[in-house]
């Protein structure tokens, strides 16, 4: 990407000669891929719900598919955000909803039940990836109960706090007097 941004860089500003290693982990890349997949699927569901219901033999459920599309888009945006973990868990929950909706259409009289079985298989596979990514991208913040270093001796005042407070009081005192004298002059 930086090759493109170098085009707008001012002449003379440093440009990358050799890239260093990225600390991005494979699970971060997976989360990103799932996020974009979610947005793509959501757009299809939102803008072409009839194509989806016809493929699955579930005509009449277009409103539900459109709502699922909105859910996919929001979960995708969350998965691409800093809080990707929340987005991925939202996707895991969404996978459950997808599976339940598909199962409701898996009836003996549905001529497209083969497509539903295939869709269920895909949802299962994606759900496994979502779950894996959600597990692996848990925030790495230390737990609240973790032992932490404390800094009780770092006052920043080499001469001590009391010395600073005394100095501040001494500076404030003459200023107070000036105000009082001024106030007296203003009293009628």
């Amino acid at each position, binding site marked *: *990407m*930086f090759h*493109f*941004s*170098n085009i*707008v*860089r*001012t*002449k*003379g*500003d*440093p*440009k*990358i*000669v*050799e*890239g*260093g*290693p*990225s*600390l*991005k982990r494979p699970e*971060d890349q997976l989360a990103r891929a799932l996020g974009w997949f979610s947005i793509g699927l959501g757009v299809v569901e939102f803008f072409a719900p009839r194509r989806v219901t016809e493929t699955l033999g579930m005509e009449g459920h277009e409103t539900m598919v459109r709502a699922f599309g909105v859910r996919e888009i*929001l979960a995708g*945006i*969350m998965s691409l*955000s*800093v*809080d990707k973990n*929340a*987005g991925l868990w939202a996707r895991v929950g969404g996978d459950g909803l997808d599976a339940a909706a598909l199962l409701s259409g898996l009836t003996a009289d549905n001529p497209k039940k083969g497509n539903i079985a295939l869709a269920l298989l895909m949802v299962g596979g994606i759900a496994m990836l979502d779950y894996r990514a959600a597990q692996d991208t848990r*925030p*790495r*913040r*230390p737990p*609240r109960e973790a032992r*932490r*270093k*404390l*800094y*009780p*001796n*770092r*006052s*920043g*005042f*080499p*001469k001590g*706090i009391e010395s*600073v*407070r005394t*100095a*501040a*009081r001494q*500076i*404030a005192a003459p200023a*107070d007097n000036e105000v009082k004298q001024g106030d007296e002059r203003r009293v009628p």
Partner: protein
Amino acid sequence: MKALVWHGKEDIRCDTVTDPEIQDPRDAIIKVTSCAICGSDLHLFHNFIPGMLPGDIMGHETMGEVVEVGSGVDGKLKKGDRIVVPFTIICGECDQCKRGNFSVCETTNRKRHLADKVFGHTTAGLFGYTHLTGGYPGGQAEYLRVPYADATHIKVPPGIPDEQLLFLSDIFPTGWQAAVQCDIEPTDTVAIWGCGPVGQMAIRSAILLGANQVIAIDCLPERLSMAEAGGATTINFETESVVERLNDLTDGRGPEKCIDCVGMESHVMASLPDTLLDRAKQMVMAESDRPHVLREMIYVCRPGGIISVPGVYSGLSDMLPMGAFMNKGLTMRTGQTHVNRWTDDLLRRIEEGEIDPSFVITHTVPLEQGPEMYQVFRDKRDSCVKVVLRP
């Protein structure tokens, strides 16, 4: 040279880049001896502030030794001088600079057309801080070009270690300005939200300026312990109600002065529903900032009081209680720091041993470990408060 380069959200790498060159007669090049990761760098790390491009060099807290000067520096700097570089680039000649409003210098933002559109008017150019503020390469690198170097520098004497001087570049004057903006009186209670590096400096500044009581609010034990060491009474917002405790500590009046050292990424907690809503809106890009602290300050501040905001906000904040703000007659003061307005005084205080800003440093590592330290700092691992990098 080596430099920490932004490649995208949560992706900063230590790359090899070309060395900076003198581009203008008023430029200087410094060899960086120390630089630091600032809390506001994390907003860029998270890509919450628009205007970063892959390949941008990070960093705006930098000091070093002058190795080259342009012909127009006019003898104000020479090779070998030791300088701290203020994060705001200033010309020293425009109307705003003459008024001491250095952070809104009208000259130095070389991409002012962007700032004019986004902010209404341009602000100063900043090092390593998006193309909205000039797209200047930052100082988390081995060398740094300092534009307008004849004005954009703080000359520091030998004999004082880098650790004590480095924070004149940003967090010390930022905390100081936050406290000065409060017009602190000897009877005042000053409440400070956020005990990160700027919050710690604001606490010390409020003490130096003679506040009667300083109250610091955070949830991390290491930061609260550091705040307490600096003379503050502390409130852990995860275990107690901030509003109740502040009212208790001020006999129900509320603090006269409130300082927001948190900014746009306030903590999200299930017990604070507004923070959850803000986070959700921020995720879907329906709101850019999470202004919980601003809301709380307006609610709890004593009527007629002052709210000072050094914390960074990038764009749009929802649901601010303007009714309370107006009816209580509050004053809000904010802005990026006019660094050079304060640094002569602050340098004197360091030289005289009144304050030693190095207390805040918890990690010092080579520049190459910078990318990892961004994650450690962001995740508050290893009780991290402030990271200094050594190129």
